[in-house]
């Protein structure tokens, strides 16, 4: 990650704050204010509820607004002299369930690439002390499983997965995940909901600052909701990736059977 330059090209990185200086971030629906005091850091944030912008822009500026005027504000006592704040984008901490705009059928033996965009979290660190992790957009909870007794907690995506990469709006507060679905079973797969293991993915950035994750391959061998999961260990090829921004939150074995589809079979 590069140090702050006069022309900051990304909203993440390392930022120097003087004592009693406030800095404000606007990334997607999130407004974040960080204030440094002597031996203390204050963080305040709020997210707009109805944010539906396809705008890529973001903003970082100095501000006079005090963190105390926000509902969500927290104080951290730290004997830190460097005054260096590290801002890192992170992917969601739970799997995310996304839907195509209109459910579609994937015939036996077919494969398709879908593009899913998921919102990011902002992680704030001073020195090597992690201060706070903030969701840029609060996603609704959802349950992904065959019954109310068995399943996983996930976030429900507010956007749809797309078949065409060009249809997906570029947004600075979301990461794009390409998903290759292979239907090797003998029945048609009706795709209504798609569960993606986002915590298993690392994060890359392209030259314009769009965040990406590697390609996920979901292979459905038999009838049912389960798919064999494979995560590429190289960045996606759709764009010019320049740098790896963060590692996966969960680094457990990624070659596993995963409940990926919640489907009605025809």
């Amino acid at each position, binding site marked *: 990650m590069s140090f702050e330059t006069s022309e900051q090209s990304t909203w993440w990185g390392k930022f120097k704050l003087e004592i009693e200086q406030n800095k404000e971030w606007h990334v997607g629906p999130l407004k974040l204010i960080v204030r440094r005091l002597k031996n203390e850091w204050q963080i305040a944030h709020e997210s707009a509820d109805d944010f539906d912008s396809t705008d890529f822009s973001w903003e970082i500026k100095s501000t006079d607004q005090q963190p105390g005027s926000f509902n969500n504000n927290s104080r951290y006592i730290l004997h830190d002299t460097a005054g260096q704040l590290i801002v890192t984008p992170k992917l969601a901490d739970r799997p995310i369930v996304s839907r195509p705009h209109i459910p579609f059928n994937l015939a036996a033996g077919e494969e398709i690439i879908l593009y899913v965009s998921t919102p990011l979290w902002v992680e704030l660190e001073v020195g090597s002390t992690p201060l706070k992790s903030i969701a840029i957009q609060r*996603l609704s*909870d959802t*349950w992904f499983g065959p019954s*109310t007794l068995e399943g996983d907690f996930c976030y429900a995506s507010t956007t749809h997965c797309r078949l065409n990469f060009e249809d997906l709006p570029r947004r600075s507060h979301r990461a794009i995940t390409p998903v290759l679905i292979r239907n090797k079973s003998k029945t048609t797969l009706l795709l209504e909901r798609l569960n993606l293991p986002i915590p298993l993915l690392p994060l890359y950035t392209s030259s314009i600052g769009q965040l990406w994750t590697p390609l996920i391959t979901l292979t459905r061998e038999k009838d049912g909701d389960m798919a064999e999961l494979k995560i590429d260990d190289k960045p996606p090829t759709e764009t010019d990736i320049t740098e790896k921004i963060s590692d996966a939150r969960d680094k457990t074995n990624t070659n596993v059977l995963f409940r990926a589809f919640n489907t009605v079979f025809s």
Partner: protein
Amino acid sequence: MNEFWTDIVNFLNNENIWILIRAFVLIVMGIVFAKLISAALIKLAGNKMDNHRLMLLKRGSYYLIFILFLISSLRELGFNLSILLGAAGVFTVAIGFASQTSASNLISGLFLVAERPFTIGDIIRVGTTTGEVLSIDLLSVKLRTFDNLFVRIPNESLIKSEVTTLTRFPIRRVDVLVGVAYKEDLKKVRATLDEVANKNPLCLEEPKPLYVFLSFGESSLDIQYSVWAKRENFLDLKNSIHEEIKNAFDENGIEIPFPHRTIYTGIETKPFPVTSIDNKQPDK
């Protein structure tokens, strides 16, 4: 004086006293060993078992070791164990009659342990008492209620009555019962409820909220709207969803009616005379 010393020496030389001491030492050793071994077993199995099983392992190993030492100590005292056990059979019947309640609790406790309807740390509701299970013992189950009271429930009553475990499954449903005025458009009401559920992040997107038209009530159309939440968020959602539904109904002009009464004078009588009066003080 000499006699006294002789008595003491005779007493100490007497075999019986040493037998008594040996038996006593065996019992003390039994307690110490049982404690040490059960503690060691708990440490070994600490990561692999839940609290409930750990407790069973601890008590089981403790009593097993202690009883073995107790038997050796009784042997040391010269008891013939087969006769003792026979006598114990007769005693059991006598004691059984005398302590019916305790015995019933004890047996119920064994069933509870085997059936495992809940474990330590679960939240259960028995009758009107709701609380966290602190321990499951042979005679009773101890609860900590949410107002921080310690409640002891005899195992017998747990076996006999209905017990609800609130923390068994990962998700729970919040049922909102709401009535709307007869003049309202139910499609609009349903759309408003769906929007409220959609906007609340604690409300699960799947399983989908359930909409049930209950009845044509006395003064309102009664509706049940059920939403799902993560178990830990149940109370938060219950509080927020009611508030949000009220706000959304107010915004959309949907009336939540009070009970209405229309006074009907009957077919034989004339309508009530209605007189409009001026808002002025009556003459005195």
